[in-house]
């Protein structure tokens, strides 16, 4: 009916086709996790970095690898360990005896899709190496600035911080991630489906037959489409209210930053595009609020002791604010 009255202003056909293909590719290997996959795709379309958290064995790395494989771009993987140095990530200047000069040897961060596995295994010194590259998409070494190639997306996995041998990521770094996606244990039916699927596998290399769906230029053009989507002014005010309330909420020690406001808007645009709309609705904003805010806010110590989660507080904040219509 709406097609009879309203003609589409933005052509989202290519985007929706690509999203459906990526989902279909992932569905061959990943059971369930529909929301997580939607958020991963939305994160890439919104030009953001994504942090995936979950206990060991819930296919965090596999999901990230599949997403990376579905894009035909330079992919590199960094396994974070406690003894990793910043130069191991960014690169270092090496003396060349032939030219009698120092040459910069690029580190694994020089890529399009960077998978950082177990990001919270490295201490704060190594984490700090990612600050500049994640926000400004460039690195500065020995006075030289090296720009990253677009698209540049960091997909990082981490175990919950309560686990052995892990470090809490600095707040400044957490704020640079668009989403923190929490991967939960599968339901009973999903668990059965996982076992059945694995049992029927003919090969040990599941990723062997995964074909890329998008190229790097495709991703850049789709990001431009997403950036151009319409957001009504009242919805911008709605997002601002959510973030302001997070800063004044008595359960929170640290609220959302202006970067969080922008992240909600960008992520909501990507979700709207995935749903085939060229405008954002309050549903999109509510849908992305928890993944955008849960790693950016900090609970007060008493609330943490009571077992309150960031998602609980985000839910309470959203309940307080009137949906604009």
């Amino acid at each position, binding site marked *: *009916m*709406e097609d*009879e*009255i*309203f003609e589409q*202003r933005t052509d989202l056909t290519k985007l929706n086709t690509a999203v459906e293909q990526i989902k279909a590719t992932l569905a061959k290997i990943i059971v369930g996790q529909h929301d997580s996959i939607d958020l991963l795709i939305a994160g890439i379309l919104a030009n953001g970095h994504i942090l995936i958290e979950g206990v060991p064995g819930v296919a965090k790395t596999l999901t990230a690898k599949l997403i990376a494989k579905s894009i035909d771009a330079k992919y590199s993987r960094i396994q974070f360990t406690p003894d990793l140095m910043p130069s191991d990530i960014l690169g270092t200047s090496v003396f060349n005896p032939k030219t009698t000069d120092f040459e910069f040897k690029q580190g694994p961060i020089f890529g399009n899709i960077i998978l950082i596995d177990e990001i919270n295994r490295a201490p704060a010194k190594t984490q700090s190496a990612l600050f500049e590259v994640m926000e400004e998409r460039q690195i500065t070494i020995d006075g030289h600035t090296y720009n990253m190639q677009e698209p540049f997306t960091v997909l990082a996995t981490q175990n919950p911080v309560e686990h052995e041998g892990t470090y809490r990521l600095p707040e400044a770094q957490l704020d640079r991630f668009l989403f923190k996606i929490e991967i939960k244990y599968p339901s009973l039916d999903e668990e059965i489906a996982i076992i059945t699927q694995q049992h029927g596998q003919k090969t040990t290399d599941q990723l062997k037959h995964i074909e890329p769906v998008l190229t790097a230029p495709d991703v850049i053009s789709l990001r431009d489409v997403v950036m151009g989507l*319409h957001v*009504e002014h*009242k*919805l911008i*005010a709605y997002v*601002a*209210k959510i973030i*302001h*309330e997070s800063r*004044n*909420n*008595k359960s929170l020690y640290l609220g959302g930053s202006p970067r969080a406001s922008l992240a909600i808007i960008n992520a909501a645009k990507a979700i709207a595009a995935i749903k085939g*709309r*060229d*405008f*954002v*609705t*309050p*549903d999109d904003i*509510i849908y992305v609020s928890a993944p955008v805010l849960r790693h950016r806010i900090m609970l007060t110590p008493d609330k943490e002791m009571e077992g309150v989660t960031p998602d609980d507080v985000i839910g309470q904040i*959203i*309940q*307080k*604010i*009137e*949906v*604009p*219509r």
Partner: protein
Amino acid sequence: MVKLKPAVFFTLIFAIFLSSSSFAAIKKVPAKTQTDTSKIQVKSFDSKEIKKSLADKDFNYNDIHNAGQPSLWARFWSWLWDLLFGWVDKSTVGGSIMKYILLTLSVSFLVFVVFQSLGIDPIKLWQGEAKKINVPYSESLENIHEINFDGEIEKSVSQRDYRLAVRLLYLRCLKQLSDTHLIQWQIDKTNSAYVYELTDPVQKQTFGLLTRQFEYVWYGDFPIDQQAFVNINQLFQSFKKQLV
């Protein structure tokens, strides 16, 4: 080391013993008193200086004139105390306790007044309550039960503001659903939440369609002309009949 023969050794010991006894046997000679024959110079104190020092306040350790007299500040507090709490007997133990309680209350009241004058609510500050946010937002806390829909829709249509007219049609639709207890109106619920709340499949489908129309017009800012408004209005009217 040279080894001494026992005979020589004992001879030496004996000699030492004798010498010490001979010292002990020396008689003490009485001491002679020495006479100081030097000339004595007599010195006298300056009586003027003595008088001056005696008159100096710094050397007066028995200032009986000011002893026991309260300072101006202490007298002020004493006056204020008598004015406010003169009825309390300070000499008893209970009175002393009461004194401190009343002083604490007075100070607390003073702090409260200072905070209030600064525009800070000290009770909320103490309780750690969240400060209310005040974002300028014209539709805030709009109550659908208080809007004169017919009049407002008519006004919007006459002004050719079809976008606002569609919004009012949708809000009226929500009011009707709320009045018939098909949905529970709450400020934090989204349109899709109301769609899911409907149990009748036909109503759900029709209301879902109306919701999409509203969202395209209101959130999507899609341009709407008179003909499009007439079509949308017909959909709303037919849904209204379904509810009756």
